[in-house]
């Protein structure tokens, strides 16, 4: 057992401050365990969102010593024994209380992405897809919607005014996934360019760095999607073609 000080943000949309809680940390514990100890013994009303405590649901996102992380997958032995550990809510989303933020922005964006629409099935009523054709899509579908990528993206973290015009990395992953889905028939490139604002992204890769599922958000989703958009809308030959056709 090592004694550690947990410095936890307490407050709501009107303001707040950090409070310090001394706790005994035992072997193998993660930050979420220690937050639960604080909650059970010292601050019964400490607000924290969590579900599975196994890195599968993406509920317990927070900023631990300034770094966006899942609290349930952050081992306490990552830090110096006995060092003070600061836990703050995600900055990009409006604060509800303590470590809980209002992430409804993400659910609103999700509604704007047109649904998957498959091509007709084979004669036997089912589909054939080769594994190599879905490997990339499966990588994207590992996303647990922890929204850490959204939280860390400068386009909205530093400029909340961009939120209405920018879907964020999580939804570029979703758009890329649908774009590469062997069965889907809907074209969402115009959406990616215009309403989702993929052009705002300047590929700093912050999203990729914080992804707990190791999805290569920038390289595998955003860049290919940007290329597809550029090919269609910014290719000079296509541009001339569109002008000639009066489109």
């Amino acid at each position: 057992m090592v004694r550690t000080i947990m410095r936890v943000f307490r407050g709501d949309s009107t303001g707040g401050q950090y409070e310090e809680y001394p706790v005994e940390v035992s072997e193998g514990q993660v930050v979420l365990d220690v937050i639960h100890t604080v909650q059970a013994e010292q601050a019964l009303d400490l607000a924290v969102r969590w579900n599975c405590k196994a890195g599968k649901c993406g509920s317990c996102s927070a900023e631990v010593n300034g770094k966006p992380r899942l609290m349930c997958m952050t081992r306490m032995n990552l830090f110096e024994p006995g060092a003070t550990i600061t836990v703050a809510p995600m900055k990009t989303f409006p604060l509800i209380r303590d470590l809980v933020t209002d992430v409804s922005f993400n659910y609103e964006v999700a509604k704007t992405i047109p649904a998957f629409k498959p091509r007709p099935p084979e004669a036997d009523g089912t589909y054939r897809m080769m594994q190599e054709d879905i490997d990339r899509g499966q990588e994207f579908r590992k996303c647990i919607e922890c929204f850490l990528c959204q939280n860390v993206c400068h386009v909205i973290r530093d400029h909340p005014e961009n939120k209405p015009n920018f879907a964020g990395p999580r939804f570029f992953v979703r758009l890329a996934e649908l774009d590469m889905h062997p069965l889907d028939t809907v074209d969402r490139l115009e959406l990616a360019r215009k309403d989702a604002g993929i052009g705002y992204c300047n590929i700093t890769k912050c999203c990729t760095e914080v992804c707990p599922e190791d999805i290569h958000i920038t390289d595998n989703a955003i860049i290919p999607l940007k290329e597809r958009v550029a090919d269609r809308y910014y290719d000079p030959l296509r541009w001339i073609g569109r002008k000639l056709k009066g489109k």
Partner: protein
Amino acid sequence: MPDYETHEYDVLVIGAGGAGLRAAIEASAQGARTALVCKSLLGKAHTVMAEGGIAAALGNVYEQDNWQVHFRDTMRGGKMLNNWRMAQLHAQEAPDRVHELENWGALFDRTADGRILQRDFGGHRYARLAHVGDRTGLEMIRTLQQHAVHNGIDVFMECTISRLLKDGDRVSGAIGYWRESGKVIVFNAKAVVLATGGVGKAFKITSNSWEYTGDGHSLAYWAGADLIDMECVQFHPTGMVWPPSVRGILVTEGVRGDGGTLTNSDGVQFMFNYITPYFASETADTIEEAERWYDDKRNNRRTPNLLPRDEVARAINSEVKAGRGSPHGGVFLDIASRRSAEYIRRRLPSMYHQFKQLADVDITATAMEVGPTMHYIMGGVRVDADTAQSTVPGLFAAGECAGGMHGANRLGGNSLSDLLVFGRRAGLGAAEYAGNLRATPKLDQEALDGVVKEMFSPFDHGSAAENPYTIQHELQDTMHTLVGIIRNKSELDEAMVQVRGYQERAQRAGVEGHRQYNPGWHLSIDLKSMLTVSEAIARAAETRKESRGGHTRDDYPDPSPEWGKVNVVVRQGPGGDMRISTEPLPQMPADLQALFEEAH
């Protein structure tokens, strides 16, 4: 008279895991105005943690597979206590439900010819589980969620239902609170579907998420519905055991399905010593035959490492008790000596990641330490198999909170398929029921006010309040120690005494502060349902004087033919007391009976 935020719907679905989402999608598709309420954010429900796959006799890997074989496996796995009609519908409809997910965008792992790949799992005769690596639950919940978003369903996230409301005998809606603001919310609905999952948070070592506080079981019970088979609790044989803070986190059965074997501290594959006569004819009894089975499944019998979960969990428990356990009180699960690192990382990425990150163990190089963890409750709300309606008109239940489908023990992979098959049926049943009602049943204002008063009472106790976290921890200890894998009368009696003590203390459970996102307050309310299901489990377990599936008594170690013919039924008496009775199982028709008489 206080004015509460009130919404009117045809169908109210409580719970947004696989069953709740599928029910809401179906009810909405039938034209019912549908609300979906969940305690967490959408997409975070316990379904997201399911790993191994969805059992469905697609016949993609073994074309001999069909619904009859799946039905037979399910019934035998459940030690014949299952509601035969549910098991039949489940086996017949699961393939369509899997294909439907693909139609909605799911990307399952593929066979070489591009069809949905299927993996081996315990108790299933053929490789049967459609899967995505070891994150099938995530694929399923995301697919349903993404489909539901576009189907006109109103979603109420982070909203907890405290009580169902009735108009006479019928359901008329539900009352609860917004977790974020603590404000009261009322639903006036013609039909209600419970899809709230399980009860794991009443146990100390569990694979279940925080939401599993027995809400649906308790809501139904308080509303007068019957619960059945509450004594049948599944301990998954393989949970993590070290370090202590991760104890109970699930290790998918897919590890054994994909080639992992269990060994004790002497290096012995002990499962060969635990083959019960019931499964002897279909299980390899030598290591040589079991080894051959991995490559030639037609001419060899299955490895006992893939016996149903109740058998494996009891075996591990016995090995550890006999002093042949691993250093941290489990046994060893080894896949590294059979499969390449590349194979393991591709098939079991979450397991690889989870052990690496949480336990500093590389499962591609060394064995895991695993032990039983409370995983699932087979018991639940008694429902009509075809419509999913409970014994209360207008109240439906699907998924883990419904009883009957899995009998005394659930086979791995049969839960995700259960959620889809009976989620759809519950949505259909509820929409049809609502469509046949001319008017929405009335809300009972007096009952509403009473529930509100009770919901807010945790703030009334001041400094005399009991810490709700302490009560929960003590309850978890009691259930783990006295109502665990192996039970007996004296321990169950002691458990009931302790649970009554907690019930008394929980009246005074409370917190300081205000109602905005206050987890201590939420827990004070959740305790009531956790204690109700704990009492039901302990009492039902005391009643069933035999051992069967997920209910093992060391004072009645054998199955009894007489007890095999009845369900233990739990219902609330007129004075609010818990009544226990036994009632005969539904009788299986002769053509299905015949499936069990054929030689296999």
